[in-house]
């Protein structure tokens, strides 16, 4: 029997804005399955985003949804979670939104280890504005603002999150739909900051400029570039060149969660 996504989607809000072949819809379905698996009460779940194609996701979900300003999702979400820690908080957005204009909020939310799950759709490009290079556009790649190839080095988002102090960091791709919800479930169940980086495809503004003739080509590329962490441990640096590690990259259950820390502050202040 087909999975019932419709109960989680707001009536009348489809079709979505995403181009044919875009991976964001695959991620949204994964998120819906993960929310169901975790039994999240959507009345008590805030889904927070910034600006960009990926940030349009919350509008389709039947939940408390907050489409904020460019890059600010993690900071708004921090306010929601701090003020009402009993709410489930999920952030979603793209690579430019999360790691360029929102980079500061992103790393500090990771540092605090505040209990939320951030699904970051990394499609290597600013899609909504027509394909300008982002901090995740591969060096040398073509974007509308890198006609001679991208001179910038990239951010490795997962490494950035681990370095900044997030306590659950995982990566997969839009070509691995089953792994998407599996990892988001683990992220939601983890008490602390969980970053799920999903390598995604933008056939319209990235693929067509970078010799991916079709959506299938992009999906094949994502599939071929993904190396599960276990398999990677048996591979040489040379073999791993140009590949992405996937699966759970980091998991720490010792670091205190931020709202729990603040609950202790309240106890102290109240002389308990």
């Amino acid at each position: 029997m087909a999975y019932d996504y419709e109960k989680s989607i707001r009536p009348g809000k489809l079709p979505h804005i995403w181009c044919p072949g875009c991976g964001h819809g695959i991620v949204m379905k994964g998120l819906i399955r993960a929310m169901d698996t975790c039994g999240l009460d959507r009345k008590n779940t805030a889904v927070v985003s910034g600006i960009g194609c990926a940030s349009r996701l919350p509008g389709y979900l039947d939940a408390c949804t907050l489409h904020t300003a460019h890059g600010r999702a993690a900071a708004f979400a921090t306010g929601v979670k701090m003020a009402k820690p009993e709410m489930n908080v999920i952030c979603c957005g793209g690579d430019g939104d999360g790691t360029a204009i929102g980079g500061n909020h992103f790393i500090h939310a990771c540092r605090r280890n505040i209990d939320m799950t951030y699904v970051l759709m990394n499609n290597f490009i600013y899609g909504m504005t027509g394909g300008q290079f982002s901090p995740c556009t591969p060096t040398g790649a073509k974007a509308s603002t890198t006609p001679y190839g991208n001179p910038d080095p990239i951010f490795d988002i997962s490494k950035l999150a681990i370095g900044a102090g997030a306590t659950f960091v995982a990566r997969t791709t839009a070509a691995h739909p089953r792994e998407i919800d599996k990892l988001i479930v683990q992220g939601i169940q983890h008490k602390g900051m969980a970053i799920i980086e999903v390598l995604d495809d933008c056939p319209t503004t990235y693929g067509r400029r970078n010799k991916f003739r079709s959506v299938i080509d992009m999906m094949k590329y994502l599939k071929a570039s993904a190396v599960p962490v276990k398999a990677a441990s048996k591979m040489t640096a040379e073999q791993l060149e140009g590949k992405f590690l996937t699966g759970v990259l980091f998991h720490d259950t010792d670091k205190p969660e931020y709202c729990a820390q603040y609950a202790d502050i309240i106890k102290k202040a109240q002389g308990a």
Partner: protein
Amino acid sequence: MAKKVALLQGNEACAQGALYAGCNFFGGYPITPSTEVAEVLSGELPKIGGKFIQMEDEIGAMASIIGASLTGAKALTATSGPGVSLKQELIGYACIAEIPCVIINVMRGGPSTGMPTGPGQSDVMQAKWGTHGDHAAIALVPASCQEIFSETVRAFNLAEKYRMPVQVLYDEIVGHMRERIVFPEPGELEVINREAPTDGPETYKPYDSTKGQVPPLAAFGSGYKFHVTGLNKADDGFPTTKASLVDAEERRQIDKVTDNIADIESYEEYLTEDADVIVWAYGSTSRSARYAVNELRKEGIKAGLFRPITLWPFPEKRTAELAAKAKAIVVAEMNLGQMIYEVERVAKGACVVVGEFRVDGDPLNPGQIMTKVKEVL
């Protein structure tokens, strides 16, 4: 029982006023000369189960209070000019999404880093026009520590009642001076809480203008599922580009303030009844102006003081009436002429309007104002 009395700094009075108003969330970032507001609330909020968070930057602080307010919290941030410049993006967000919150701006000089420990009044136009796009603004300009307390309470009331960001601007002099504060008893000052929706979750629309100019805002986590965005939106909260809907929403959000000026405006007058010259001044400058008016009266010059307490919306009606009665208005402000443009606009040439300005970091003193009044007469 005798009322509680304390010697408080302006910034401390602000924090106490916030607590009186029921503030239970503060998100901030350190900046001179406002930091004491954050320092006091970092100690006091957890005592009442409230939350204090120092964010990674000014924008994050503004984002955190909007997020907190959406869960039903009464949320505050405090900053100074450079911080307000950074917050403009999300002040606009709070305007269009109609999220109540209070922003304290303890004004220093500028532009840019300016003189962090010196006073200024050069953010007054920014308070109206700082964020992009058409929007209404409410800004209050207290002139004493006691008034910082009561105007902070009123700022929360107006934010909750009109569902929008409200700014309280006071210059560094008022922020850092110490005065005797009489704490109002609970109930003595009005405290307005957010109106709860009458519709149930199934039919609730967050921008339903049939519920009035200020439709009730449900809280996240209270059983209501709805969408909030910074895009132009229809009454259900979802983005729209339909011209008639965009136009209606934009106008409602401005009309909710302009149609209620009588409720929002506040000013004080001193010896204006028979005055030939009106000194038009706010904040610490109004204290110099009052002194100047007294001295001028001793010399037989009929001077009076008009002191706006609500700066935005601008006190158009009363300023125009005074312009029609007086020979001249002297606008005294610690900038190089900002509110004077508004005074000129509404005076429409009915009297002479001149300015007395100062931006060197020293207070605008009574002597300057007296000289200007004598010049203009």
